[in-house]
Every structure is written in structure tokens, then in C-alpha cells.
């Protein structure tokens, strides 16, 4: 049985912080459902791919459950796909986490490990855990409103050891800095979006991202 149009599908593939994502959706009245079968996401206007854990294991899970194919089909149908944390990294072509793994390839780019030492030789704790500033990329025209009604420089909660490097700079909506590295922390290519931070764990500012997802769906979510 497929779920109603207008219900966001939160993918349960055994790796996610599903319940905090669900709570955040509830908080902004974004109707959502945790699903674990690939056929359940096809008719959903938006699929949220959460995720914590290892890239290779996550891709294996997604492939074996048929979820990887369903996500690609979902894009072809014109639905939104939103990756969060590891979920965002899975959207990319490839990761160098413990070997090399292919990702979903929905956005062009790679997943790289933070250096333990910056070019200046300063040591950094990895994983990058804590509240970090989220900024507009340099190329962004200042007159363009910041995505999701966020103000540049607000802090979001991060916990990750790997970061995303996009091939097309036009896909980068938001950036952050750590370990002498500036990295993409909000990405978008068409209807595929990703956030490296945890908007569902980033207080009231984080909830604005979920509100933004509700707005993206416009009337759909209220039909």
C-alpha cells in the first residue's frame, strides 16, 4: 500500500536518527511517515534520507533493500530528495571513507576526510562536533535571500568526520569551516537537497529548514 500524496517519507534503512527527524517534521506541521519499503517512497513528494554511521554500510543497506533504485526513480518522477548528514554524503558520486565507495550520484562531487592537521600544522579534533556557523558561499549575490529564511552566520549542530566537495559550485547553497577547510554544508541540484548539519537538532534555526521544506512542497503538503 502506498502512502498519501503530501506525506514526506523518512527512509528507515537501519542507520538513521529517524525519530528526531520525525519530531522536527511534526513540529512544523510537515506530515511525515517513517518507511522501510522502497515502494512506499515512489508516491511521496519528498523523501528525507537521514543517516548516521559508515558510508559503505549505508550504501550497502540502500542497495540491498532496493532503496537506492527507488530514490533514483523518485527523482525521475520529479519528487524531492533531501539528505541529512550521512544522508547528504550518500547523494554524492563517491566517498573515500575506509576505501572508496560509490554513492547515489545524484549530485556531482566527492566525500573526503577532514585533515587532522591544517596546512598551518594546527591540530583539530575529529569528528567535528558542535555548533558551527553556516555561511553563504562567496559567489552568492548578497541581494539574493539566504535559503530557508536563515540569516548568514547562524550556528547549526554538526557531528561528522567527512565532508562534501561539490564539482559544480552552483550546487553549493551554504558553507562552513573546520580544520582549515571550507566545505559545502547545504547543497542543492534541482530537486535534490542536502544538509551536512542536523537541522532537527539545531534548535529554532534548524526548524526553519524543516519549515523551508514544507514551503518547497507548497500546496502539496496541505492537499
Amino acid at each position, binding site marked *: 500500500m502506498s502512502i498519501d500524496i503530501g506525506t514526506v517519507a523518512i527512509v528507515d534503512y537501519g542507520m538513521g536518527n529517524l525519530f528526531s527527524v520525525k519530531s522536527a517534521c511534526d513540529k512544523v506541521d510537515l506530515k511525515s511517515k517513517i518507511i522501510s519499503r522502497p515502494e512506499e517512497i515512489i508516491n511521496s513528494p519528498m523523501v528525507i534520507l537521514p543517516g*548516521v554511521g559508515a558510508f559503505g554500510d549505508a550504501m550497502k543497506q540502500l542497495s540491498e533493500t532496493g532503496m537506492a533504485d527507488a530514490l533514483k526513480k523518485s527523482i525521475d518522477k520529479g519528487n524531492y530528495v533531501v539528505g541529512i548528514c550521512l544522508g547528504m554524503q550518500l547523494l554524492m558520486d563517491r566517498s573515500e571513507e575506509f576505501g572508496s565507495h560509490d554513492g547515489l550520484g545524484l549530485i556531482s562531487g566527492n566525500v573526503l576526510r577532514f585533515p587532522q592537521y591544517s596546512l598551518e600544522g594546527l591540530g583539530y*579534533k575529529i569528528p567535528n562536533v558542535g555548533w558551527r556557523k553556516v555561511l553563504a558561499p562567496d559567489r552568492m549575490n548578497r541581494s539574493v535571500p539566504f535559503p530557508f529564511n536563515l540569516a548568514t552566520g547562524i550556528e547549526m549542530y554538526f557531528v561528522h568526520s567527512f565532508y562534501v566537495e561539490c564539482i559544480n559550485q552552483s550546487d553549493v547553497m551554504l558553507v562552513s569551516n573546520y580544520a582549515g577547510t571550507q566545505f559545502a554544508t547545504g547543497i542543492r541540484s534541482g530537486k535534490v537537497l542536502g544538509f551536512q548539519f542536523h537541522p532537527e537538532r539545531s534548535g529554532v534555526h534548524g526548524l526553519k529548514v524543516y519549515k523551508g521544506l514544507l514551503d518547497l512542497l507548497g500546496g502539496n503538503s496541505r492537499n
Partner: protein
Amino acid sequence: MDNAGGKYPIRIIPRLDIKGPNLVKGVQMEGLRVLGSPYQFAGKYYKDGADELIYMDVVASLYGRNSLLSLIERTAKDIFIPLTVGGGIRSVEDVRDVLRAGADKVSVNTAALKRPVLIREIAETFGSSTLVVSIEAKKTKAGEYEAYADYGREATGMDVVQWAEKVESLGAGEVLITSIDNEGSGRGFDLELTKLISRALKIPVIASGGAGRVSDFYDSVMVGEADAVSAASFFHYDAYQNLDHEGSNNEGNREFLQKGRQYFGIESDSVESLKHGLIEKSVPCRDSRQ
């Protein structure tokens, strides 16, 4: 390692010791006294700008599990900052249960000391970022630090630094280091211990045990090189006086009200006011005004 991460915001993390449905005061102080509803205190800390929260089940019996899980569920529904849950976690299944209920991370101590490979099992199943290994340390007469199990009740004979390094190599994402000697005393964090662990590890270190005043948090970061700082009583006494206690039995707690903010040498304060104090001294904190 040198910690250049110090220029990024440090995290302020209230720790709530839980017994059944209640928040109780710090475990090292004699006896357990009920302070009120953990959910209410957590809500206040969230509003005041706490960067994360820790729930520690101090009884950790199977009997209390359901009550803990429903507390986690209730918390995760409207408190949108990371929640770490510890106490009585012995297996991957226990971890799954608390994560399912809405926790973001788990903290393990005793079970990991008994069976270190549990750390690897949890890290491999849920990712290192989900795992905070709690280490409780007591200074020996020889001036070394020994790891303890079971909330400081059981000595292990294990050197704290060696244990911390092992924990890191097995896949812990963070270490919560608690000074048993200073816990609940209000005389400040054990800076020597904090620095020892922070320098030995490449993963973030949360300092805990002994917060008595704002300057202790400053020292913990600037001298102890902590990446995050956790405290219990320091926040609870202030919160206690600023909450309408929902349906709790306040018997025996009158003395908090009478003694004001001073209690057992602790100059209690709110998260918000602590952060302002730290920002004034140029310690980077998240601007939590909402």
C-alpha cells in the same frame, strides 16, 4: 594533540541524573534527592541555550527502562538539541532501544570496561558519532588517575590515559571525563585530568565534575583544553528556583529555596548567564538568543 579547535564554540552540556521518573541531584553527594521532573528541567535548559543534554540513568535497572524510554520520547518531541543517554547500556540492543526512543547518542562506561569490544560493536553499528564513552577517574595516592566503574563505586586498576587511548582506538566518537574526587564538590574541574585526556586524544573531550562557578568553566576550556563542559548541580539549583514544579513531591527540598543560589559551595547559574560570562572573557560560545 594540540587543540586548535578551541577557536570554535565550546559546548555547554547540562547533565541530568535520572532515577525512575525523577531528576535527582549529583550521584557523588550523599544519598539521592529528588529535584523534580527531568523533562521540565531539560525544557528550561533548552530555552536557556544549552548546546546538548545528557540523561544519566543512575539506577540503570531493567525495572526503570520503560520510564526512561518514555522520558526520552517525550524529550525528543520538543527539545531540538542533541540528547545523549547513558546508564545501564550493556549491548547493541540497549543502544538501539534508546536511539529508537529519540536519543542522538549513547554513553557507556561500566559495560565497556567489562567488555571493551562493545565500543567497537556500537561504533560499527551506529557510527562513532553516536558513541560517547564515559570515563570516571579518581586520583591515586601516587598521583596517577585510575578508571572506575559503576559511578565511582568500583576501582578497575586501569590507568585512565591508557583506557582513554584504547577507547579512542576502538571507535569512540567522544570521551566524557568525570573527576570522581571533584564531582558535586563545587571546587572546580580537575584541570590536570582534563588536560591529560584532552592532549592524549584526537577526538573531542567533554569535561565533567566539580563546576562551582563561571570561572571553572573558563579554566576547563582555557587550561584543561576541553572541547565541551558538562555540569549538573551547577545548573539544577538555579533551575529549581525558577521552575513551577509539576506534580512532584518537594518534600525535603525546602532548603534549596532557603539557601538561594549558594548550595554546597556551588554558585549556581543558568546556561544563558554562564554563556554571557564566558563570552565576556572571549571564550567562544554559541549565541543562543532565540
